């Protein structure tokens, strides 16, 4: 029992002050290209300026202004739109007197009920769960950086996770899929779009703006400074 607790505490122990200073010193002067590993002197950027790697032309440093503030603003807007997108009816189908109204959650539930559990899980994750998690994580990071709170470890973990989730949030692809399916059934039935459809469309736009407001370099720099 003692061994386990020791191991957990050892894992959670943050690096010593001296080590953090050493790391900070190193990162003040140097940086490496994420795509080709070329080592460069860390440039000092003017606001909105970008640095590109001389070897592979990947953008290696950005300096977006008020990144934390703008991230918070976009994430709050996203959260409201997300609530609209999942709680209101997404679309309604009418055909020879029969009408069928579904929300996004209904759609996932129908898949699960039709013994398509794997597909239901994939859709629930990619459309509902991951986008929500990403919004909340970025909101948390942005908000606490914005308020200059010093909770470095949870920040770092949340921001890392938010970045990992980025390729797995597929709300925009889902919307294109929905539009294609509308064309497919358009001749069979009358389709009416609900408020959730427009909510989700707006959510995609706002989330795209939110993603471009996040300046990874600035935020990691702030997290590094706080720790």
């Amino acid at each position: 029992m003692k061994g386990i607790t020791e191991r957990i505490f050892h894992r959670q122990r943050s690096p010593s002050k001296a080590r953090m200073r050493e790391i900070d010193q190193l990162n003040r002067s140097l940086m490496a290209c994420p795509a080709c590993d070329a080592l460069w002197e860390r440039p000092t950027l003017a606001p909105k300026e970008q640095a590109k790697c001389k070897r592979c032309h990947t953008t290696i440093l950005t300096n977006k202004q008020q990144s934390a503030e703008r991230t918070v603003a976009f994430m709050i807007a996203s959260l409201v739109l997300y609530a609209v997108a999942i709680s209101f009816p997404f679309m309604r189908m009418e055909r020879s007197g029969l009408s069928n109204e579904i929300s996004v959650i209904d759609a996932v539930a129908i898949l699960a009920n039709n013994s398509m559990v794997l597909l239901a899980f994939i859709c629930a994750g990619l459309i509902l769960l991951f986008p929500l998690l990403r919004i909340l994580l970025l909101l948390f990071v942005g908000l606490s950086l914005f308020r200059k709170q010093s909770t470095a470890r949870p920040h770092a973990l949340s921001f890392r996770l938010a970045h990992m989730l980025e390729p797995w949030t597929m709300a925009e692809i889902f919307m294109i899929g929905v539009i294609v399916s509308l064309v497919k059934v358009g001749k069979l039935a009358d389709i009416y779009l609900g408020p959730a459809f427009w909510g989700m469309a707006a959510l995609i736009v706002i989330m795209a703006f939110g993603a471009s407001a996040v300046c990874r370099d600035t935020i990691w720099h702030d997290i590094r400074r706080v720790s």
Partner: protein
Amino acid sequence: MTTAREAGLARCSSCGTLTNRPGEKCAVCGAKTHTRRPNSLLHVWAFWIAGVLAYIPGNVMPIMVTQSVAGDSPSTIIGGVITLIHHGSFEIAAVIFIASIVVPVSKFIIIAWLALSIQHGRALNEHRRHLAYEAVELIGRWSMIDVFVVAALAALIQVGALMSILPGAGVNAFAMSVIFTMLSAMSFDTRLIWDASISKQELQNDEH
């Protein structure tokens, strides 16, 4: 020009912090640091094979079954594209064809080509290969369109009406294929492309 690895440094792939102790957990974000992703190509190939294997049933088996009074009619991805062409929806047919056939197949080819070019040390243009990788990373996710089309159709056209649409087994396989291929591309360490370019330069320097 030197690389971080040559200088004895490693860049944390998660937060970008440089460390002078590669292999240690990153002091800032806690991720494990490596000079190069360990066994990158092994992971690439493992997920690539899984992706290709799942892609076959994804295309052969029906992705959805339309039930009506006339009986069940299963349709595959290609079948769906052909039906759309018959109905005159050429744009939508093109979207599905590109997202479900052109993109996955070219993804398989590009990833295999990148991995092989590194394993065989071919002297190919690094910029071109880098661009190909970035294209794969950017476009790969969009193959999911057809999965969501089926999900939306199945949810919308349900039992009770004169006609209902059920998802077929192929759609599971296809979704897994897209996920595996995304994982395969993510496992690829782009720095390997540029490492080869350094060893090529060294080779030329030795010859002169």
